[in-house]
């Protein structure tokens, strides 16, 4: 290169790198740092960072020095300082590539956060070491005093760096990651062997190494050699290791993270457990990471948020989770409906095993169409505010959530006026029944001959089928089952029979009922009451039955019984293929 150019092609002076580029890199890492797992693993991260790199640099330096002494290689003139210098350059593990791969294959949280934290802390201290060795290398004779000065300088620079944003990090290099025996005893969740291997293998080198190598002062003799070998190492680690990381980790089945939304139950219970452990720790007089996390959160809420954030009302993560789940449910329902049908999701709300005595709070959004568009545009961007942004590519958008809540509240008020609850405890159960009024069994209603492949028969509205089936698409998400979009308590609405629909899903898949569709269209802007009526009308024409005139439920209790029996089944109707016919007869 020197023969071709007078000066290096890129004007990457050390100043430019250290002053401008590095802080930005660190800022980017820090901004998207997931706080909770990070602090939980703080010890490990620091251990890797601090002790790991020191050990590493020195180890590599010395061993390289030893190798250099072998005459066969003909590089005997590289002295120890220079070797150490090289070692410090090489120790700089590159975070971006690794994290991208990790993110992509959803490695479990622990591994992810350790690598993340380590990279966060590594960039600058490699630099510190580099400076140190640089300085040392330039001296021809290293005296004892110099060594101590070097160490002192190291500390000064290190602490100074820390003051400027906790720039603190070391890197454990590829060859010395035998962390199992050293770190695992201190960890509550130990890393298994596969995790360790993943950690070790992911020591990719990249930009920082290159920059450091480039900025080596010319006084170092073997500079060119160093640059070349740095480049080789970078290429090796990035391409070969990087490309093979993904299949290797998959192969070894490194534990994956759980990307599904946790249920609200889990959210609440986890929070309670955290409080419990925090309390017990206080009891034992021990400080642990919960203590620090708690302190930090309090401090955060009291000062930092007020200063730095516009709306400083701290949002509980439980509430955020709940909102998010609701939104998701809403969207799923809306997704399954066509644009015409703006009618009540409440009728097709999922099996509600619970007869809930309390007043129903959740109400269908009134202006469904707008909401549908809004939601579908924003659905996957919604994130909780207090929870860390683990994915920097999706940022929160609270507008939608607020809008929906507002709309809900207004429609709630509206509907509360409209509804009347004779028997509120029935509402939950009987919601499920779409096509039959309360108190009537299927058997008596419809001509048995009509449905050849079932004992009992019932109309199956296509719309409900599709919506229900779409809602059951993800059975592992139990939260999607229970939609809090309940109808109001008026008895007619109450008798909609989604339950029947659910049970028939599998058998009557192809059964079309276009009449229902059109009736839905006509009742587009009516609340559930009219929909129900139109539904019953359809049954009238299809089933030829005459029961429609009954508006009031003769005996809601009959229906109340029924859901009880099937409650455990209702959870996964799609899986209960053999449950047909439903046990309706025993009601009558």
């Amino acid at each position, binding site marked *: 290169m020197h023969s071709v150019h007078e000066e290096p092609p890129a004007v990457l002076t050390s100043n430019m790198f250290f002053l401008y580029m590095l802080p930005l890199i660190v800022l980017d890492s820090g901004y998207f740092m997931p706080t909770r797992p990070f602090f939980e693993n703080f010890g490990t991260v620091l251990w890797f960072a601090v002790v790991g790199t020191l050990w590493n640099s020195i180890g590599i330096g010395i061993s390289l020095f030893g190798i250099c002494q072998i005459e066969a290689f003909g590089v005997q003139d590289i002295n120890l300082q220079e070797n150490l210098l090289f070692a410090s350059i090489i120790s700089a593990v590159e975070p971006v590539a690794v994290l991208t791969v990790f993110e992509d294959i959803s490695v479990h949280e622990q591994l992810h956060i350790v690598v993340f934290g380590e990279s966060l802390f590594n960039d600058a201290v490699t630099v510190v070491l580099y400076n140190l060795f640089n300085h040392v290398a330039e001296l021809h004779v290293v005296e004892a005093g110099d060594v101590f000065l070097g160490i002192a300088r190291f500390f000064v620079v290190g602490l100074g760096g820390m003051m400027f944003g906790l720039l603190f990090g070391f890197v454990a290099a590829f060859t010395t990651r035998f962390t199992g025996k050293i770190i695992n005893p201190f960890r*509550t969740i130990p890393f298994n062997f596969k995790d360790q291997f993943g950690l070790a293998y992911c020591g990719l080198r990249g930009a920082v190494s290159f920059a450091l190598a480039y900025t080596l002062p010319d006084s170092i003799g073997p500079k060119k050699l160093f640059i070349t070998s740095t480049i080789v190492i970078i290429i090796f680690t990035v391409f070969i290791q990087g490309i093979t990381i993904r299949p290797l980790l998959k192969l070894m089945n490194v534990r994956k993270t759980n990307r599904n939304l946790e249920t609200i139950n889990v959210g609440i219970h986890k929070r309670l457990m955290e409080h419990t452990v925090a309390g017990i720790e206080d009891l*034992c007089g021990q400080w642990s990471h919960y203590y620090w996390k708690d302190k930090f959160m309090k401090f955060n809420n009291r000062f930092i948020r007020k200063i730095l954030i516009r709306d400083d009302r701290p949002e509980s993560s439980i509430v955020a989770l709940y909102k998010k789940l609701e939104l998701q449910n809403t969207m799923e329902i809306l997704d399954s409906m066509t644009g015409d049908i703006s009618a009540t999701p409440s009728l097709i709300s999922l099996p509600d095993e619970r007869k809930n005595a309390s007043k129903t709070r959740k109400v269908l959004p009134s202006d469904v169409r707008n909401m549908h568009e809004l939601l579908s545009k924003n659905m996957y961007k919604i994130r909780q505010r207090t929870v860390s942004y683990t994915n920097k590519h999706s940022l929160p958008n609270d507008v939608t959530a607020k809008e929906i809540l507002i709309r809900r509240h207004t429609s709630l008020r509206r509907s509360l006026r409209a509804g009347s609850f004779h028997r509120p405890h029935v509402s939950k159960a009987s919601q499920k029944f779409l096509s039959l009024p309360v108190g009537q069994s299927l058997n008596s209603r419809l001509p048995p001959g009509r449905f050849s492949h079932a004992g009992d028969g019932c109309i199956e509205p296509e719309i409900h089928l599709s919506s229900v089936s779409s809602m059951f698409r993800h059975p592992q998400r139990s939260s999607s089952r229970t939609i809090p979009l309940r109808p109001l308590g008026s008895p007619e609405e109450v008798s909609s029979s989604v339950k029947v629909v659910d049970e028939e899903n599998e058998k009557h898949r192809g059964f079309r009922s276009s009449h229902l569709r059109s009736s839905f269209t006509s009742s587009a802007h009516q609340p559930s009451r009219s929909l129900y009526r139109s539904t019953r009308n359809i049954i009238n024409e299809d089933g030829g039955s005459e029961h429609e005139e009954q508006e009031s439920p003769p005996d809601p209790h009959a229906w109340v019984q029924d859901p009880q029996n099937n409650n455990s089944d209702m959870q996964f109707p799609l899986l209960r293929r053999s449950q047909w016919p439903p046990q309706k007869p025993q009601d009558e």
Partner: protein
Amino acid sequence: MRCFDVTRRSVPASLMKLYKSVILNKQIHQPPMLIEHKHTHAVNILQLFTISTAHIIRLHDRFKELDTERRGYLCPQDFGAIKGLAINPIGDRIIGAFFSPGRETVDFYTFVKILAHFRPADNIRPKESSSPEPINSRTNKLKFVFQMYDLDKDGKISRIDLLKALRGMLEMQVTEEQLDSIVDRTIQEADLDGDDAISFEEFRKSLEKVNIDHKMSIRFLR
């Protein structure tokens, strides 16, 4: 983890001395639980000894520290003096867990026993059905959490229980309406038999995917 089987080996003298001192410090009217039932003695001590000696000594130091009046037992006021617990939203429930129904005081044995719930679980456990489940097993940890919720001790988490717990945890951040909604949804999700409350089995099922051992363990008790 050192486990001393009383039936087989002799207990280290220092530890026996410790226990003797603890026992002797108690009030006379309170029978020391350690030697209460001879037939369960071995089992109890075994359980107790799944915490290593060093930890027990440390816990005893803490016990003495909390026992400001040097009575050999703790009463609710002693617990209340712990600042962290006082501001913990479920602090009073945690304290309540130490006092078995009808008792007004906590002796050292109970103290350690409750805290033993929070040991990280051992991975190697011989799968004999004859030995009682260790106190830090997943089930027992879950039972402890269940206890935190179920204040009226009817074996179920009712809406009221959940409401109270949530209100405590969420403090000022939610409206009553939101709270009700959340409670509704929670019960909806978990309740399988439709009784409007969460039984222990339903509770356990709802948490089947969660690593309880990780969340409910204190590191220093390993």
